[in-house]
C-alpha cells in the first residue's frame, strides 16, 4: 500500500500563500478527478480549508515519484512555478501520511488546538471524494478510521475541554462556581460588545434572565431587546445587583462603581449565596479588594486572559496523550490493512483448504487398509484436484475485484466466510 500526502498548513505557509493554493469547494470534484487520472494513482482525497491544503493519495507503486507528481499538480492548477511553492510544502509517505491525517482530523495540528470544526471539514471533504468516486479502497479505510480516532482523542483527552476565548472562559468560570447556570440571573452594567458576547454565552448555557443597565438608557433598551432581557435605570443598579448571581461590568466610568462595602452589603442581603463579578472595563469598574470577600469572585480582563493561557497550556499537555494515541492507532490500522491485502489472503485461503484436505485424509487413512503407492497417489491427486477446482473461482474473483473500489470489503468477506484468522 503506497500512501503519499502532500500539503501545506498554517505551520508551513503564511496566509498569502495558503489563499493562493486553496482549492475552492466548487472546484474540488474536478481537482479530485484530475489527480485520480494521474499515472499510478488509485485513490485521492483532497482537503482544502483556510488553514490547510492536503492532497492524500494511494498509488499502485511508489518509487518516490508520487510526491513530485502531486506537487506539480498543485503548481499547475494554480498557475504557479514549482520553485515558488515547494518551500511551503510538506510530504509524508506511508505511516507518516496516515498519522498526519489522524492528527489533522483530531485537531492536534490545528491553529487552536482541539478546535471542533476541522473534523467536520475532513468529513465534508471525504463525502465529496466519495461522491466523486475517487475513494473505495485502503485510503477510504484510513479516512473513515480517522473519524473514529479523532473522536477517541477528543473524548479521552482534554484537548477540547477548556475554554480558549475570553467570553467562554467567563462562562466556564461561572460554571465552576455555580455548577449549573440554570436559574441564575445576569446583570450587565454597560453595554459593550464583549459583555454582550459573554451574556449570550451565559444565556446559551442556561442562565435564566438578564438585566441591562447603561448610562444611556436607549442603548440599554436596545441590548435588553436583543438579549430578551430587561433594561433598568442606572440609579437602580444596586436594587437589582442583589438578585443577580453574575455581574458583568464594562462601563467607561473613570472610578470604581462597586466598592468593597457594596459587595459586603450585597452578600449579606442574599444570605451569602455566591456572586461572580466580571470586570472587563479599563479602567476597572469594580474595586479589586472585593475579591477578598468570602463567596464572592471577581475576575478582571487580565485574570480572564490568564485563565485562557492556562487552558491553552492544559490543552497542550493533553495533546501529548493525543499524539501517543494517534501513533498507536496508526500501527493498529496498518496491521489491519495488511491482513486485507489480496496476496496473503489467497495464500491463507489455499493453505486453509489444504489443511482441511490433509486432516480428512489422515482421519480416514486407517479405514482404507493397505494401499499401493499408485493408489496413494490417486487419492492425493483426487483430493488436491477437488480443492483446486473449488478455490479456482474465488481466487480469480479476489484478484480482479480487489483492484476495484470496495475491494477491501470483498477481501474481508472472503476472510470471514472461510474463517481465516487475522
Amino acid at each position, binding site marked *: 500500500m503506497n500512501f503519499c500526502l502532500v500539503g501545506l498548513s498554517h505551520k508551513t505557509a503564511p496566509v498569502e500563500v495558503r489563499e493562493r493554493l486553496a482549492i475552492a469547494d466548487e472546484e474540488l470534484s474536478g481537482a479530485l478527478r484530475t489527480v485520480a487520472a494521474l499515472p499510478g494513482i488509485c485513490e485521492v482525497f483532497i482537503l482544502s480549508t483556510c488553514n490547510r491544503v492536503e492532497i492524500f493519495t494511494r498509488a499502485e507503486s511508489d518509487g518516490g515519484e508520487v510526491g513530485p507528481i502531486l506537487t506539480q499538480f498543485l503548481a499547475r492548477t494554480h498557475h504557479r512555478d514549482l520553485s515558488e511553492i515547494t518551500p511551503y510544502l510538506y510530504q509524508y509517505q506511508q505511516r507518516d501520511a496516515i498519522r498526519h491525517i489522524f492528527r489533522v482530523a483530531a485537531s492536534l495540528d490545528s491553529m487552536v488546538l482541539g478546535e471542533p470544526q476541522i473534523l467536520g471539514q475532513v468529513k465534508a471533504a471525504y463525502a465529496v471524494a466519495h461522491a466523486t468516486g475517487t475513494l473505495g479502497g485502503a485510503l477510504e479505510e484510513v479516512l473513515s478510521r480517522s473519524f473514529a480516532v479523532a473522536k477517541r482523542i477528543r473524548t479521552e483527552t*482534554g484537548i477540547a*475541554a477548556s475554554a480558549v476565548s475570553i467570553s467562554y472562559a467567563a462562562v466556564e*468560570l461561572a460554571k*465552576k*462556581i*455555580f455548577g*449549573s447556570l440554570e436559574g441564575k440571573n445576569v446583570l450587565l452594567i454597560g453595554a459593550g460588545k464583549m459583555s454582550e458576547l459573554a451574556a449570550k454565552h451565559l444565556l446559551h448555557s442556561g442562565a435564566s434572565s438578564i438585566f441591562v443597565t447603561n448610562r444611556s438608557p436607549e442603548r440599554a433598551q436596545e441590548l435588553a431587546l436583543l438579549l430578551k432581557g430587561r433594561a433598568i435605570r442606572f440609579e437602580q443598579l444596586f436594587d437589582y445587583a442583589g438578585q443577580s448571581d453574575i455581574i458583568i461590568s464594562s462601563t467607561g466610568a473613570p472610578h470604581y462603581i462597586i466598592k468593597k462595602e457594596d459587595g459586603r452589603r450585597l452578600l449579606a442581603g442574599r444570605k451569602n449565596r455566591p456572586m461572580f463579578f466580571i470586570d472587563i472595563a479599563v479602567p476597572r469598574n469594580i474595586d479589586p479588594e472585593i475579591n477578598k470577600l468570602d*463567596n464572592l*469572585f471577581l475576575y478582571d480582563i487580565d485574570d480572564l486572559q490568564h485563565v485562557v493561557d492556562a487552558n491553552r497550556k492544559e490543552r497542550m499537555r493533553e495533546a501529548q*496523550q493525543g499524539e501517543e494515541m494517534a501513533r498507536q492507532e496508526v500501527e493498529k490500522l496498518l496491521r489491519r490493512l495488511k491482513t486485507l491485502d489480496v496476496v496473503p489472503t489467497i495464500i491463507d485461503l489455499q493453505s486453509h483448504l489444504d489443511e482441511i484436505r490433509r486432516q480428512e485424509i489422515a482421519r480416514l487413512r486407517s479405514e482404507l487398509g493397505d494401499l499401493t503407492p499408485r493408489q496413494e497417489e490417486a487419492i492425493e491427486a483426487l483430493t488436491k484436484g477437488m480443492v483446486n477446482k473449488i478455490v479456482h473461482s474465488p481466487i480469480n474473483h479476489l484478484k480482479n475485484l480487489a483492484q476495484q473500489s470496495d475491494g477491501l470489503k470483498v477481501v474481508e468477506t472472503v476472510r470471514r466466510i472461510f474463517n481465516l484468522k487475522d
Partner: protein
Amino acid sequence: MNLLWLRVALALYSLGLLHAVLTVFRRRQRLFRIALGAISLGVVFHLVALVEDGLALGHFPVTSLQEAASLFAFLIACAFLLVYWRYQFHSISVFIFPLVFVLTLTAAMDRSTHYWELPLLRTAWLYLHVSLIILGYTAFFLTFVAGVMYLIQERELKSKKPRAFYYRLPPLDTIDDLAYKSLAVGFPFITLGIITGAFWANAVWGPSWPIDPKISWSFVTWLIYLLLLFTRWTAGWRGRKAAYFAIAGFAATLVTWGTNSGLHSFVSP
C-alpha cells in the same frame, strides 16, 4: 474466620486506589469505567463478606476494631458510588480510596481475638450504638472531604491561576451541596448513636456510669456539628467558613475516636 471475600473486595478496591492516583496525573482516563466496575463489584463482595462474618459470629459484626473497620470501609465505598451517581464526578476518589483501602486491608488481615468479650456489655444496644456511630462517621467523613475539596477549589478560583485541581474538581456549588447534605444525614445518625450509647450504659450500669473521656469528647464533637448545622440553616453560613468548621468537626471526631484507640475506657482490656 473466612476472609476470602473480603480479600477479593480488597483486590477490587485496589483498582479504585489506582484510579485515585492516576486522577492526580491525568485528566481523563479510560481506566475509570473499569475502576467503577471494580469498585461496584468490590462493594458486592464486601457485603457478602460482612454477611458471612455476621453468620459466623452469630451477631452483627461490629464488636471488634477490625470488624468495625470493615463496615466503615464498606460504607465509605458505598458513599463513593452514591456521590458518583448523584453528582457525576469521581475526583473525590483521591480522598476516599486511600482510606477505603487501608481500612479494608486492616480488616482483611488475620483476625486477632475479640476485645469485647465481657458478656455484661453484650446487649442489643451495643450493636445499635456502634453501627449508628459508624454511619454518622461515614457521613461526616464526606463532609470533611467536601470541606477540603471546597478549600482547594476556592483557592484555585480566588488565585485566578488555574492548576491541576481546578480542572479535576467539581464546581463549588456542587461541593457545598455535598457538604451540606452529608452533614444533614450524618447529624441524626450521630445523635441517635449517642442516645443509644446512653441507653446502653444505662442498661449496664444503671444511673451511675463510669467516667470516660471519650464521652466528654463526643459531646464536644456533637456540639460543633450542631453549631455548624444551625449556622448553615439560620445565618447562611456556607463556603469557606463552613468548610473550616467541617474540618474542625472531623478533627474532633478523630480525637473522640482516638481516645482509648477506638474503645471506651471501661471496655479496654
